[in-house]
């Protein structure tokens, strides 16, 4: 064992001894783990970390899990953990970091992001929600959409237009919004699966203190890019076990149900099995690159290939199920439970996975990124970068 590993083992042991998981309140335990710098070891000391390399984290998580310790329910706070925390770490003041990061990690406060708008989807920089300066605060008006977790969240990452007479990328600013502020109206947005995983958020004269601004006025696009970069890195690294992920269900069905083994679908199944295993190894290789500090641009490609795999696997499962695939489980409007993947029928996953190629950047945007940033091919002709945002055709 290395010195670092020995030290980590000692610290873990210390937390577990002082706060035996079986007798300790869940939040109390998580706060203790955070205080010991074992929340995310690559974060700074005092903010849940020890300033170590990120590659030590999986072992720490594994030891706590093996000891029966509670986790911070990461599925329920993906935006907080994956996107908000690194952005806050980079752009917020030390006082703000102390206010926001501990309850973020423990899951006491959920975060969401308010970027997309009905008229600004792939083209996020066209966002039109306005912020008007009023003393030491800003008054925000507009509509955001595709906001996952907003109904559970206390805080939001907010992109707004502070300079409508500037070209589109230059007139944006970035704030942290307290969702309990008057004028914030979160409405559920029903989707084709029947459930309401996302929200629309209406902002009506919402006052946001200027001190909650991250980055300079007009630098909102730069901060947003940093946030999105964290999102795409998060998609990449690491790999599950063979046959984990979207291929798992259809392979399990094939193994366990003789009548699902339709000869005419065997080749399609094998192709997906091969694709899944290739993607697993590609993800592992990207994770290894991240570990040695040389992240590759593979994330965008992985995201789009993963979407295709997940969609094809769910669709194939319907073919294998035959008659039973004509059924659905429940169309009633409800909120999904984010604590674990829901136990739903194949038809649900077929529908839900259609979003994989849209959310978090469409597959078309991924292909633009790869062809322009990786392969160095010319950018698409742009007619919208040099004229005032207010004069753009909407």
């Amino acid at each position, binding site marked *: 064992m290395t010195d670092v590993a020995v030290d980590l083992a000692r610290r873990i042991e210390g937390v577990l001894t002082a706060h035996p998981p079986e007798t300790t309140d869940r939040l109390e335990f998580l706060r203790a783990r955070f205080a010991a710098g074992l929340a995310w070891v690559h974060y700074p000391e005092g903010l849940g970390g020890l300033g170590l390399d990120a590659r030590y984290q999986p072992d720490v998580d594994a030891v706590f899990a093996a000891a029966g310790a509670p986790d911070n329910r990461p599925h329920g706070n993906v935006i907080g953990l994956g996107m908000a925390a690194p952005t806050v770490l980079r752009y917020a003041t030390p006082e703000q970091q102390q206010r926001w990061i501990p309850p973020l990690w423990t899951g006491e406060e959920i975060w969401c992001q308010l970027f997309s708008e009905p008229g600004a989807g792939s*083209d996020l920089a066209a966002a039109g929600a306005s912020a008007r300066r009023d003393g030491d605060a800003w008054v925000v008006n507009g509509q955001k*959409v*595709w906001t996952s977790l907003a109904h559970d969240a206390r805080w939001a990452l907010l992109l707004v237009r502070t300079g409508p007479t500037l070209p589109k990328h230059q007139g944006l600013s970035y704030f942290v919004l307290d969702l309990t502020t008057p004028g914030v109206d979160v409405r559920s947005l029903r*989707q084709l699966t029947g459930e309401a995983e996302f929200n629309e958020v209406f902002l009506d004269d919402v006052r946001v203190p200027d001190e909650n601004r991250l980055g300079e006025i007009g630098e909102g696009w730069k901060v947003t890019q940093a946030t999105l970069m964290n999102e795409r890195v998060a998609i990449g690294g690491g790999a599950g076990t063979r046959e984990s992920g979207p291929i798992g269900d259809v392979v399990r069905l094939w193994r366990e149900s003789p009548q699902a083994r339709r000869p005419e679908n065997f080749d399609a199944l094998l192709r997906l099995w091969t694709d899944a295993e290739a993607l697993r190894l590609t993800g592992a290789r990207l994770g290894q690159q991240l570990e040695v500090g040389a992240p590759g641009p593979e994330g965008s490609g992985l995201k789009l290939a993963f979407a295709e795999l997940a969609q094809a696997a769910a669709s194939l499962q319907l073919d294998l199920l035959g008659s039973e695939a*004509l059924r*659905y489980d429940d169309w009633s409007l409800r909120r999904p439970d984010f604590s674990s993947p829901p136990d739903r029928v194949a038809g649900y996953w077929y529908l839900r996975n259609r979003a994989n190629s*849209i959310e978090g950047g469409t597959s078309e945007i991924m292909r633009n990124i790869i062809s322009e940033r990786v392969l160095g091919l010319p950018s698409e002709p742009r*007619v919208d970068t040099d004229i005032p945002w207010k004069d753009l055709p909407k």
Partner: protein
Amino acid sequence: MSQIPSLLYADVEDDLRRAVRVMLADRAPIEEILDRSDQEDAYGKGARQIWSGLVEELGVAALAVPAELGGAGASWREVAVVLEELGRGVVDVPFFTSAVLATSLAHEAGAIDLLGELATGEAVGAVVASFAAPLVPPEGLTWDGRVVSGTVRTVAGVAEATHLLVPVADALLVVAAEQADALAVPSLDMTRRVADVTFEGVEAAVVAEGPEVVVALARSADLAAALLASEQLGLAERVLELTVDYLKQRRQFGRVLGSYQALKHRLADLWTSVTQARAVARYAAACASATDGPDASDLSVAASLAQAVCGEVALRAAEECLQLHGGIGFTWEHPAHLYVKRARTDALALGTPSWHRRRLADLAGLPHPA
């Protein structure tokens, strides 16, 4: 000259299409179909009104029924045109289940009385077999010569039906719909819902018996598969239109989306596939309509070819429509999902495209590998 029958639309078919399209534009707006898809009632007032209009005013249920049996004496080609229009609108009426599935089976099995009632609309029929693989006698039913018992899952068009055609081991039965216990289940396609049908010792009338039942079922299965392709064609054409229209309006990065060449080329490929779907769907309809000669004897090939092609094209078209609408297409309020759900279940109904390709191997005499 070519041996291939006309794959074009005759003037009478164009006229019929216009009449159906005008009526549906008026009475079957997609917003109402979307709204009904979420309601408890599996066959609501709105859908009944459309059905009445189609049957009583336009006589669509009579098209394929011979004139001497009370029908219009047209042919399955005209039925196919109606299906294209209904596919364009994912209309929630029992045309396919009654005027195609039940009517073709009644016709092939010689159920002359029922056929006449189906043609006039007095009766609405459904075939009690799973919609994914219908027209083989379903397992789970027992028939003792007097009463039928048991359950069949995922039957389409039951809520709308007055008469149920029930294939059992070597007979075809007819049962009044109210005699059966139909349990509506949540369906992937709520514009054509499925139900589990249970008979608890129900007395049934025998429509046909013996080997001719198998023959009737097989031919009816081919007819239905051949015709479903036209519904898929209509759906594919419509979602392609919707997508092209949307891309001509929606702007991102200061340009309309339709000016992006990657999207243009995908739509060009899709359009190319739709032209192929049109040719094979028309061929299937022509073979279905032929009563003898090479076209009639090619019906099985034409039907499986049509399902193999149109099933995939419609599904791809609907999925592209969803993808290219971005987030908005993903909302419940936007009708794109109705098309996706219909296209996806249509690609299960009567056998998947991959199943039909395997069947073509047998029909075309391509030996299976050792």
